């Protein structure tokens, strides 16, 4: 310990300097203290900043640079083509299919998972014996790896597999489809599987939101003669606003990035025809596996810009709504 540390003030504090020190010594010790503080700040934050900059920020910059070239990934890129890769992407019907599929997944997830999760969360927010066990079971799909879940459903949905056998055994054989191979069906199958996997996440968040609703409010509404449904509709739901918006935000970002599930469940041929491709699988198929690195990076930039802009717009919207006092004001 240096002498500076003996007379050190609490960080950032404006407490009176220790008595008995001459003004000059006081100034010197304060300078030493400031220098020491900056050493600590730099020493503690540098590793995090470096790794964050190197692996999060730098790659996106490089992606844009590479996207301006026709490049097979060997040696430095030389064949500058400007924005042609972007033009090519938007002319490729498969990429447009991928965009459409992402849109289906984004909106399908919001529209299906939202109400379903809300219903289940309200159910599991009631107080009954064994509630925590039920909650645990409902969260299981969310905790499993997307890949494992994908393989699992692939086994169940395969042609002539379990689901088909079950349908036939209850006389619904007419509904049997090539769930993962029919070009018109596969995206809806994927949406179903994604919903099965991620509805638990929405439920986790909504239960947290529900636990924040003061019970006094419900009791007051009950005393005023409101029915259970009226209470949920007019008291609980408005209070859940912020939670629902945060979930929508996370769901949207996740849906735009979806890769694992599509990759493991879909037949490559079906994917390459666009029926089940998403932006992420299209990017990896073309950039990594077909070695069209310039083109793949252009798709990466498009995916990034779409996600980033969607996130920014949503955050503005979210922020504005929440600052307006969705919680505090409506309660009165």
């Amino acid at each position, binding site marked *: 310990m240096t002498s500076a540390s003996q007379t050190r003030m609490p960080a950032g504090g404006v407490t009176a300097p220790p008595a008995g020190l001459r003004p000059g010594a006081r100034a010197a010790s304060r300078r030493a203290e400031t220098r020491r503080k900056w050493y600590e700040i730099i020493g503690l934050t540098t590793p995090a900043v470096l790794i964050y900059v190197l692996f999060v920020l730098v790659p996106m910059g490089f992606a844009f640079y590479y996207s301006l070239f026709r490049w097979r990934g060997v040696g430095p890129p030389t064949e500058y083509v400007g924005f042609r890769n972007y033009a090519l992407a938007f002319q490729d019907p498969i990429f447009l299919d991928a965009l459409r599929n992402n849109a289906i997944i984004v909106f399908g997830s919001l529209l299906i998972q939202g109400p379903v999760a809300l219903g289940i969360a309200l159910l599991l927010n009631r107080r009954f014996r064994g509630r925590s066990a039920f909650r645990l079971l409902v969260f299981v799909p969310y905790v499993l*790896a997307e890949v494992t879940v994908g393989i699992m459903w692939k086994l169940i949905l395969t042609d002539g597999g379990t689901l088909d056998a079950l349908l036939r055994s209850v006389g619904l054989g007419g509904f049997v489809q090539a769930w993962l191979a029919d070009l018109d069906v596969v995206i809806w199958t994927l949406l179903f599987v994604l919903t099965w996997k991620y509805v638990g996440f929405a439920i*986790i968040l909504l239960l947290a*939101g529900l636990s924040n609703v003061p019970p006094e409010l419900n009791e007051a509404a009950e005393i005023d003669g409101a029915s259970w449904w009226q209470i949920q509709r007019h008291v609980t739901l408005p209070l859940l606003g912020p939670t629902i918006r945060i979930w929508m935000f996370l769901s949207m970002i996740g849906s735009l990035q979806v890769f694992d599930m599509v990759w493991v469940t879909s037949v490559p041929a079906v994917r390459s025809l666009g029926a089940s491709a998403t932006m992420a699988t299209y990017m990896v198929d073309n950039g990594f596996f077909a070695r069209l690195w310039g083109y793949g990076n252009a798709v990466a930039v498009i995916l990034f810009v779409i996600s980033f802009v969607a996130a920014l717009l949503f955050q503005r919207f979210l922020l504005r709504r929440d600052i307006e006092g969705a919680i505090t004001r409506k309660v009165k």
Partner: protein
Amino acid sequence: MTVAVNSVPAPSAGRRPVQWNTPLTYALALAVAAVSIAPVVYVVIGGFRTTPQIVDDPAGLPDPWVWENYYRVLTQSGFWRQAFNSAVVALGTTLGVVVLGMAAAFVLARYTFRGREALYTFFTLGLLFPAGAAILPLYLLLRDLNLINSYYAVILPQVAFSLPLTIVILRPFLSAIPRELEDAAAIDGAGRLGFLWRIVLPLSRPAVVTVGILAFVASWNAFLLPLLVLGDVNLHTLPLGVQNFSSQYTTDTAGVLAFTSLAMLPALLFFTLAEKQIVGGLQGAVKG
């Protein structure tokens, strides 16, 4: 919804209704739970059947029960090696996230300096940078750094992409530690670093456990990054192993079922043990 109308509880003084129309609640809860775990149960039980049994009757029960698939997967496949690789990568990621995130969050929470809020905003910006979009340039960067086919190729980017959320969760927690404790530590001769080590770290264990577990689970389940950067079969993690096994042994349905259920087991065990932290962590992240 006429059923629910009956459920309006009679307002009773002092006691909140605990068991409104319990049968309906239980029926619904059971249905929801069944939908959630039926596929998982199916896969686990399917692992006890033989492929001919499954082809014969895809939706039937094992008759007789066979252990052979599980035994075969555990002894003859890369399951253990892949589980080991997954564990190394997930633990490395967790350690990195906790150490770097804690150090940065501590500075952002307990030091007053010019540019502090800018630095915080700089980190939170990372929440808007999706890892999926960056995967191709990330691969190129790792290739240039000669890290392809090493644990670091997965660990370092995973740490980097987990940092923003970690800092967002840790910072308010560290800010809430009372100033008096810091003053007391200073009086006892501890510098700020001593304060971090001896007081902040023990106090913030719940928050550290939360971010650690979130990072661990995310890493354990990761697929896209390992798929691109771990070409070496000996380095494959469990998600890659499941995918490979299922595409290599397409005709061995029973084996794939057994492998898949074994791959689910660690995650399920882990979740059962750490459910409070995982759920609480996700919820805390949203509330914060």
